[in-house]
């Protein structure tokens, strides 16, 4: 049956392109029968990014992202509660009141926040393992992104993040054209072939079969070149090289945060750059985007000279004029320096807010999930404890014992 749905997908996609194409002649017919073709809007590079799966499927506003996480968590919690209730009902007779109470107190479904923490803990793990395996930077980045996207679609209560660490890295290798056979990968990662492949299809499905990622590394290189051009002679090349290397490392860390959902790769790159040398980047952006705009005016408008005079007179007028002109012409492709800076600063803030999750925290959350899945364990532990207590070992440090066992 899956083949049918796949077929359906492709047909619906083709429908999109079809309508896109067939609309054009209709417009022509309406306007005139002659060969006078009214050109559709030009496709800018930004438009191309808007067509990417990264933008269409994997970009969110902060609200929609929160909502998505909440929904995934809610679904999972409902399932957990159902199974717990069933467990208690099934063993109604054999369970004592204390046991039921402890189950209810220990087997608490995780909150979206806790879920997010656990995912980011394991995302860091993915990064560390992938780097330990000496994989190229882009493969490391892709595996982090894949891992995060998987747990954006699925809950940690349903899939143990441990099981997916190797699977995502392996799939990332394949999708980034860095092929390693399963067996040699399993050997290197000290895992098992079946374990790696077990969830591979589920992973692909959750990724909605979108495997191409736009990472900030290429933009980093691009900006490295463009800064040299714009600030020619004003910047030390050795220094630039050093910054480039630093930023490359920082980018991988930035991918662990939510910026990948809220910002485009060039924006992330600039934020990382800005974090490294704010003055340099500010100067670069000012030169780059304010000067080109005024140049544009001298080329295109007849009243440019008067405008220029105004420019010289007072600065406040410039921005207003610029904005108006931008609105009049279809120059959406032009970049507003101010809003760009705001975006970049937001992005920088978000990167800086990243907190590493301690192993202790992660273990506590993990234990919760484990209890939810296996309420049996709680009962057994309780029994053991009671036995110990009745044996005469009046060790009432039950909590302490419990913690030890859970970890």
């Amino acid at each position, binding site marked *: *049956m899956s083949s*049918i749905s796949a077929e*359906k997908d492709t*047909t*619906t996609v083709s*429908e999109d*392109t*079809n309508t*896109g*194409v067939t609309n*054009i*002649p209709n417009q*022509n017919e309406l306007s005139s029968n002659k060969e006078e*073709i009214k*050109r*559709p809007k*030009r*496709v*800018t*590079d*930004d438009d*191309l*990014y*808007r067509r990417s799966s990264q*933008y269409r499927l994997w*970009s*969110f*506003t*902060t*609200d*929609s992202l929160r909502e998505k996480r909440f929904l995934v968590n809610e679904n999972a919690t409902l399932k957990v509660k159902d199974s717990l209730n069933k467990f208690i009902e099934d063993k109604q007779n054999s369970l004592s009141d204390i046991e039921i109470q402890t189950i209810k107190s220990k087997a608490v479904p995780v909150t979206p926040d806790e879920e997010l923490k656990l995912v980011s803990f394991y995302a860091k793990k993915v990064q560390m393992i992938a780097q330990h395996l000496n994989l190229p930077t882009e493969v490391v980045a892709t595996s982090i992104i894949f891992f995060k996207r998987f747990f954006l679609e699925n809950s940690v209560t349903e899939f143990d993040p441990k099981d997916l660490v190797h699977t995502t890295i392996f799939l990332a290798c394949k999708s980034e054209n860095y092929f390693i056979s399963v067996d040699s990968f399993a050997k290197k990662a000290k895992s098992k072939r079946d374990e790696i492949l077990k969830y591979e299809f589920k992973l692909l499905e959750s990724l909605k079969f979108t495997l191409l990622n*736009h990472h900030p590394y*290429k*933009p*980093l*290189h*691009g*900006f490295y*070149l*463009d800064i*040299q*051009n714009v600030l*020619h002679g004003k910047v030390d*090349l050795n220094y*630039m090289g050093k910054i480039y290397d630093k930023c490359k490392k920082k980018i991988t860390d930035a991918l662990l945060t939510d910026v990948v*959902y*809220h*910002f*485009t*790769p*060039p*924006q992330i*790159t600039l934020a990382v750059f800005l974090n490294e040398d704010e003055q340099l980047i500010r100067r670069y952006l000012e030169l780059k985007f304010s000067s*080109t705009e005024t140049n544009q005016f001298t080329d295109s408008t007849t009243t440019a000279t008067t405008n220029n005079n105004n420019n010289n007179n007072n600065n406040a007028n410039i921005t207003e004029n610029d904005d108006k002109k931008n609105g009049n012409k279809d120059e*959406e*492709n032009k*970049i507003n320096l101010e*809003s*760009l800076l705001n*975006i970049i600063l937001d992005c920088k803030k978000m990167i800086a807010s990243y907190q590493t999750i301690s192993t202790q925290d992660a273990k506590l959350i993990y234990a919760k999930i484990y209890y939810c899945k296996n309420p049996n364990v709680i009962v057994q532990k309780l029994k053991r404890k009671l036995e110990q207590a009745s044996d005469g070992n009046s060790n009432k440090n039950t909590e302490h014992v419990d913690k030890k066992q859970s970890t």
Partner: protein
Amino acid sequence: MNEYEEEENKDMCPICKTDRYLSPDLKFLVNPECYHKICESCVDRIFSLGPAQCPYKGCDKILRKNKFKTQIFDDVSVEKEVDIRKRVFNVFNKTLQDFNGNLDEYNKYLEDREDIVYNLDHGIDVDKMEEKLRTYEELNKQLIQANLERFKQDTESFKQRQQFEKEMKLKKRLLERQIEEEERANKRWAKREIVNRLTTSNLSVDTNEVIDSVKNTVKLKKSSARRKLEELNRVLQNNPYFGANMNPQNNKTMMMMMMQRRQLEPFTPFNGDRDLNQRYVVTRDQYEDPFIQDLEKRKEYTASGFRVDYTYDRLLNEAFRGLGCIISEELA
């Protein structure tokens, strides 16, 4: 037990125990009721007098002789599915045109059809599915008939076209061979003519002149075969759809398509022309990039088409692609 035997001896009829060794022209038949394999002579023997029970132990299906057919696929389950598919598709035979090009509706229709096939194949709600099939057939009798007719016509015209193409190719090949032969003959004649003329003429004549004049006459001799071939090619070019062979209705749709194609814009990979105002300029000599510059000096890279400026262009393009997308505003 039965299965075991079957696997044990694929070439033996389980009813009369004849096998291929003794009668080499043994043929097996199956009946779509139960897909049990029975040899031809057994079918003749058992079912000649009318419908009878399947001779397999434990199978109580009543079989008729006229329903028996040769098995095409080795795997019975495949055979069964193909049969079901054929039957269902003959009834559910609407095409995209019947939906006036509404892809969603058509996809839904296909999905329904696939569900019926799947259920019939796996024995889920068979009665209900049969009922569905029957009612659909009743309701859409005319349409089904019309579609079947159309399929028939399509396949026929396709066959005709193929036939036509084949003939044309054959003709072409013949002509080509003829031309080749003529050319060879011409060459031979030219050689002889040159020698003849040189022997008969006096010394004052320039040898080169003689040779040239002979060659010219050869060139002017454009054979009739060549002319024919050119004509044939022209016919093939001007008539890519072999309009003569199409029925008028199809011809019309073809014309429509041609018209539409002419009206369409030239193909652009991005569904529209690229914006040529880039946010960057590639200025090679300004860049100091030891990594890429090193690559340029290595033969194995340049040989396989590595160009530094392309690389720069790509990097810069990626740097500015999506810079103006404000996700928080656009997706809100």
